[in-house]
């Protein structure tokens, strides 16, 4: 974005792209530091293998994190994403095993499952006005339960090998998984949607204040409904990917990743209160967790320490801002008090 037009006053911190300032900058800085330190101190980290393993590890999280960021920015939450992925996986398994349909059609039908799941969430939340936290705890259980109903405890694994191979294939010698192309498309889509479209602008307004959003003509229910549909769709995409990557369709695929996704989104600077956050920040948040996990694993730090690191990062990322906010407020109050004293000694200003 151009800085040349600023003439209202001295623009601060020229040079950095605008989206790299503020909160995002901190996350990116931390990410860079982690990567650098890892390259220097962790054996075998700086290799193409790293890139491949690291990236393929984070695919499900980063995919769902995109629509989830939008949902949280608009002031809602969706806990049912992992279950939607599981349900998709189950449906995919059964369709492939029993229907004899072409795999392409199977995948399309699976994505429709996600759309339906998201639309059901959206309906309960926007039309009935129920709290999304409660609704999606309910559908978390429901969709996972339906996955069990659909496929039982069986597994389906005879998917076409060219597809399962594709899911882990690398682009030439770069070590970058082919599937990253899809990931980039999804990131770009949601990034553009959030930052460059009227719809995205509206989401910030919505997350900050439903009333303020209504006053500029945003259709609150409408916007939220489609966000939940988008989340459902991407979740089912992850369900399909998960199934192919592990060449196995089962009811417990992707269990529990909803909390990892939310942790990554919040770590990426999205405010749980809504109204704040960026897609680059969220991408950095996911990469940070992914890199840290991978580096520590390579460095033979016990797997288990990683969980502590994830949790601690999350707590710090939310406690940190409110702590600095508190300090800032203190300073401001002190200044106001001085001001008032000055005014009261120099006589009243009438208002």
């Amino acid at each position, binding site marked *: 974005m151009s800085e040349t037009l600023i003439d*209202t006053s001295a623009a*601060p911190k020229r040079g950095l792209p605008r989206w790299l300032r503020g909160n995002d900058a901190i996350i990116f800085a931390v990410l860079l530091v982690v990567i650098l330190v890892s390259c220097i101190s962790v054996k075998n980290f700086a290799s193409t293998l790293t890139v491949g393993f690291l990236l393929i590890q984070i695919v499900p999280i980063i995919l769902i994190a995109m629509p989830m960021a939008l949902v949280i920015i608009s002031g809602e939450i969706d806990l049912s994403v992992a279950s939607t992925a599981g349900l998709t996986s189950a449906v995919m398994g059964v369709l492939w095993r029993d229907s004899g349909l072409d795999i392409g059609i199977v995948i399309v039908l699976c994505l429709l499952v996600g759309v339906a799941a998201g639309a059901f969430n959206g309906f309960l939340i926007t039309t009935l006005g129920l709290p999304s936290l409660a609704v999606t705890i309910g559908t978390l259980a429901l969709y996972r339960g339906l996955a069990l109903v659909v496929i039982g405890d069986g597994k389906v694994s005879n998917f076409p090998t060219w597809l399962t191979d594709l899911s882990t294939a690398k682009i030439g010698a770069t070590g970058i998984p082919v599937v990253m192309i899809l990931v980039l498309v999804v990131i770009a889509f949601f990034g553009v949607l959030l930052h460059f479209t009227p719809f995205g*602008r509206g989401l910030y307004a919505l997350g900050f204040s439903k009333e303020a*959003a*209504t006053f500029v*003509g945003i259709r609150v229910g409408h916007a939220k409904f489609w966000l939940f549909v988008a989340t459902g769709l991407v979740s089912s995409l992850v369900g399909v990917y998960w199934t192919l990557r592990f060449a196995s369709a089962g009811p417990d695929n992707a269990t529990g990743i909803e909390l990892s996704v939310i942790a990554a989104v919040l770590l990426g600077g999205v405010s749980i209160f809504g109204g704040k956050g960026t897609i680059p920040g969220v991408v950095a948040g996911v990469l940070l967790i992914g890199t840290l996990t991978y580096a520590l694993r390579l460095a033979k730090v016990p797997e288990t320490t990683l969980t502590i690191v994830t949790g601690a990062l999350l707590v710090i990322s939310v406690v940190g801002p409110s702590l600095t906010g508190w300090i800032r407020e203190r300073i401001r109050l002190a200044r106001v008090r001085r001001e008032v004293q000055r005014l009261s000694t120099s006589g009243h*200003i*009438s208002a």
Partner: protein
Amino acid sequence: MATDPYTEPTNAGTPAPTPVLSLLGASKTFGPVVALADGTIQLVPGEIHALVGENGAGKSTLVKILAGVHQPDGGQFRVSGDDVSFRTPADSKAAGISVIYQEPTLFPDLTVAENIFIGRQPRGRAGLINRGEMRRQARELFARLGVPIDPDRVAEGLSIADQQIIEIAKAISLDAKVLVMDEPTAALSGVEVERLFGVARSLRERGAGILFISHRFEEVFALCDRITVMRDGRYISTHVTADVTVDEIVREMVGRNIDALFPKSEAAIGETVLKVEGLGRAGVFRDIDFEVKAGEIVALSGLVGAGRTEVARAVFGIDRYDQGTVTLDGKALKPHSPQAAIDAGIGFVPEDRRKQGLVMDLSVAKNATLTLRKSLATFGLINGRTERRVAEDWSKRLQVKTGSQDYAVSTLSGGNQQKVVIAKWLATEPRLLIVDEPTRGIDVGTKSEVHRLLSDLAGRGIAILMISSELPEVLGMADRVLVMHEGRITAQIDREAATAERVMHAATASVNLATEGTAS
């Protein structure tokens, strides 16, 4: 005519010597704004004392000081002769002061009895709450007040009148010496008002001091023993009710030179832009007819709660309405769709800037262009360059003082925030601009800037519908004043005929004057 502020109330003809509550020369500033310069009130046991003044006269700041919500910067504050300084509302309550707000805050999920006794429920064996006893005491309180409210029902869904009675019951059970009622009748119907008055009188007989804040003169004169007038954050006078007339009080409330501050240049009045016919919403407002012409500033005046904002919200499509039509430039406007209103050329500067007008965490530029989201986009994408150019253009034209267009709008001063809100609507090139309390909480300098701006806009042929509680603003700015009272338009007064007394009387529904006003 104004009596000495520090006169002991005995001089004013009321018997008891020691005031139960005495606030002398209290002041309170918020940043550069002086909300209260000289807050003075003395309340003796066994009296009902009215506190009157325009909106912005400092009444609510004074009430909040009494309630312990704000701490005064200076002045003397005594309860029953002892100096006090409250740090929290709990301190005020402990000192025997109970405050009943226009909209009481009860816990919706708790029962009525529990709402009265929360934190001090009667206890029996083993420190456990004795519910039977609590219920009995609650029932006894309601019996004393003569109102049948079931102590066992939850507070959710109670009418405002019943909620106030519960607050009063709480005050009685606390043995409050001072009861402050902040516009308690604003949301009540006739019968409920009568009931409230009965309760207030019986409390007076029991020796409580009651401070009654109201805009309705007929109530003030029917109920109160003495009246204290405030204006511009200052104490003006205290009268024994029997010795004054409504007109004298109104004159003291308004008394100041108006025209200087509010420059309204004459604009050529054009075609009718907005036409509202028979608009009604059950329980909120009804039979609303008016029109606003190009270049005209029409003020919608009246007391808080008269239904002004609600009418504006319905016109703009935020709320639904049950009857009537809204037409803009001769075309019917789709109801309940702010987007349709915006597309048709209406802008709305809402009354709560922080919650409704702005997205405080977004940058100045993004806020200023939030209304243009759609038109700024090419092929569905917002062009950052254009966005910033438009934002900067408007910032410059309205002289928004900000470090950068990228700063969060929350970093600006109140006046500059308001300019951003106005800018975002001007950017849509509206035919009609609705402004709701356009200068609330803004310093004097910016205030006149906003006024000049509105006047300019009218000059350029924009129709302006202005809601304002500040009489000087209404009288100075408006070509025509519509006065609302209890959900209806009670008077329509032209600029030449509009006087503070006239508007005030119509707003408080002293009906004879209101009809006289309509005739003009």
